């Protein structure tokens, strides 16, 4: 930074650093060049007040938009799936620990439902144990599935779009647990 560009320009540079990284990488140089162009023509307090009163709301707008994009449905689904799997593994580990290792921790079912619970609450808890991993599998795979019906051909096409490594690993993990639960269910019926 040249000394002649002064404190307001240094503040503008700092302000630009507050934009989301993607915006900064693409527009920071241009934006600062525009400030320099303006500074050459109107080096006044009024110019800088106008510039900052525009830059600050703009930073907030771009950050809010970035946050909204990060909160998109795919991430909500992934978060739901992850929560289900973590809860399921924690309940299983705690139950096995209490039953076989003599862990002195509260029973997870009593911890979640309390001492007295209705049959609906009990059914929901059982549902979580039996279907939790399968729901997690759907949550990880669902946003990447594209289903297309072709009425003229009377056909249905299911495509799995590329998914991230984390989602793929979690989907495989959830799928294996679901298969194990399904196998236990079949064997117990035989």
């Amino acid at each position, binding site marked *: 930074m040249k000394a002649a560009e002064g404190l307001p320009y240094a503040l503008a540079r700092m302000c630009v650093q507050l934009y989301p990284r993607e*915006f900064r990488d*693409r*527009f920071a*140089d*241009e*934006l*600062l*060049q*525009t*400030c320099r*162009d*303006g500074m050459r023509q109107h080096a006044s307090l009024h110019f800088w007040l*106008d*510039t900052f*009163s*525009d*830059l*600050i*709301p*703009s*930073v907030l*707008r*771009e950050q809010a938009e970035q946050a909204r994009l990060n909160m998109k449905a795919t991430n909500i689904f992934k978060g739901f799936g992850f929560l289900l799997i973590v809860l399921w593994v924690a309940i299983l580990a705690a139950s096995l620990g209490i039953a076989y290792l003599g862990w002195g921790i509260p029973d997870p079912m009593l911890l979640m439902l309390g001492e007295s619970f209705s049959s609906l609450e009990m059914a929901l808890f059982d549902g979580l144990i039996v279907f939790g991993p399968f729901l997690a599998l759907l949550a990880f795979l669902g946003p990447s599935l594209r289903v297309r019906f072709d009425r003229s051909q009377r056909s249905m096409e299911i495509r799995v779009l590329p998914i991230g490594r984390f989602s793929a690993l979690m989907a495989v993990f959830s799928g294996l647990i679901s298969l194990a639960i399904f196998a236990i269910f079949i064997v117990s019926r035989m």
Partner: protein
Amino acid sequence: MTNDPAPLTPAVFHILLALSDGDKHGYRIMQTALAQSNGRLRMGPGTLYGSIKRMLADGLIEEAGERPDPALDDERRRYYRITAQGRGALRAEAERIAALAAQLQSLHLIGENK
């Protein structure tokens, strides 16, 4: 239900209008918009580049490949160009404003000397 596109924001409208007669860089767009609006639209760099980001994503403008005079220009400046889609959006907005102006005129709300 209508298929009319949503009205453009003042910043987007003036950026498209500024680019309608040739490629321009950011500061030149700001100056042109100020002149077009008779000094009413004082667009700051944050609003300008926020709008440019969205307009690039929507295909209303594109980055111009060549610079008008590279020897005289700072290479940090990028020039922007209106696309066919941007020209269509500008025309639709101009027609919307013209229709609104005609309606206001028929109601004697504008166009009369008081």
